[in-house]
């Protein structure tokens, strides 16, 4: 399974996704610029990504907590999600996401 991640500099990366992993974990494991401060506990918003519309529509809707956190970022867009809340499975093979500025390490 592959996911395509565009980093904050516009560079695209094809990453090997793993069934059952969080998208954030794959991005972090690959060494891209993601802070993911709370380690996936849905309490920091520093794993913020934009999901390409086609894939965005396939995701289960965000929880209230996730929405609250997204609203706390400066760069929220309609296709914003927290990547630690996107669990990978075969249906998401080929998913395209872009790292938000607010996900970058300091």
């Amino acid at each position, binding site marked *: 399974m592959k996911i395509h991640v565009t980093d904050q500099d516009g560079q695209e990366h094809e990453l090997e996704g793993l069934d059952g992993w969080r998208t954030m974990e794959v991005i972090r494991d690959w060494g891209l610029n993601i802070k993911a*401060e709370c*380690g996936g*506990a849905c*309490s920091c918003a520093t794993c913020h990504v934009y999901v390409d519309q086609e894939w965005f529509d396939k995701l289960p809707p965000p929880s*209230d907590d996730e929405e*609250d956190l997204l*609203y*706390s*970022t400066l760069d929220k867009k309609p296709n914003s999600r927290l990547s630690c809340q996107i669990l990978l499975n075969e249906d998401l093979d080929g998913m395209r996401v872009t790292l938000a500025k607010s996900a970058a390490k*300091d």
Partner: protein
Amino acid sequence: MSNEIITDVVIIGGGPVGLFAVFELGLLDLKCHVIDILDRPGGQCAELYPEKPIYDIPGFPMITGQGLTDNLMAQIAPFGPQFHFNRMVTSLTKLDDGSFRLTTDAEEVFVAKVVVIAAGGGSFQPKRPPVEGIEAYEGKSVFYSVRKMDDFRDQDVVIVGGGDSALDWTLNLQPIVRSLTLVHRRDAFKAAPASVNRMKELVMEGKINFLLGQIGKLDGADGQIDHVHLTMDAGDLSIPATRLLPFFGLTMKLGPVADWGLELNDNLISVDTEKFQTSVPGVFAIGDINHYPGKLKLILSGFHEAALMAQAAKSVVAPGERVVFQYTTSSTKLQKKLGVA
């Protein structure tokens, strides 16, 4: 100076590793002051995941972040550490006699023979809400915490957020303000149910307002706000306000640690693996904040680092004094210190 606090050791950071350092240093008779920007001990464990289970603390098949913090506090209690919460250590300088001078943003001065930096992922700092130009008002009419209640007396206060901080300050400030409006995105709160109920009572009694919405623009001049614009489902609204308290959670920033002239490696403090000493002798760094080959950011690694650091710290505070290796199980000396013998 009269308000100088003189001590053997200052520990910067009251996370699990800073707390356990009190224990290891205490066994060697070193007295500690612990400073943390949070309002309570526990660092990441207490702030980021108090209810989550940890499975890799030796001897505990499962313990929560808060549980571990509570246990550490009980374990170090015999050594009487002095805690200074709600302040950030802002500067660290070496004095001519070899000791160190630390200052905090609460205007205190500490002088210590040894400094232990257990600053973890950095100091927890309030998140800035997504409002353009808010910086210009910070510290004058926009605050992220309440240091002096009097700053809010007879003011028109707007509090934003749905967690414990937002609710607690709504209840605490209500009696002294001129008006108070609580703003939250939705009608659900992540706060103690008793506070939520009390808040709702105050709304019913007409003593405070509650609005469902988000803050947008701020109006004002010279750092003083006069209106806060809200985006609401019911339509946009601008309300008069002289104080704004946004509670958007905390984030970790390395902060002042980077400016203390210590050798860094990718924003982490370089240490050796014998003493966990930094490039400045007498200043040690343990836990998540340090870097050495093979480092693992685990609580248990930090505990190990604390034990070795303490031996080295002892030889700085009491040079030449022989440190005898002892077990807490069998040494009555150690047990006396722990108050059990």
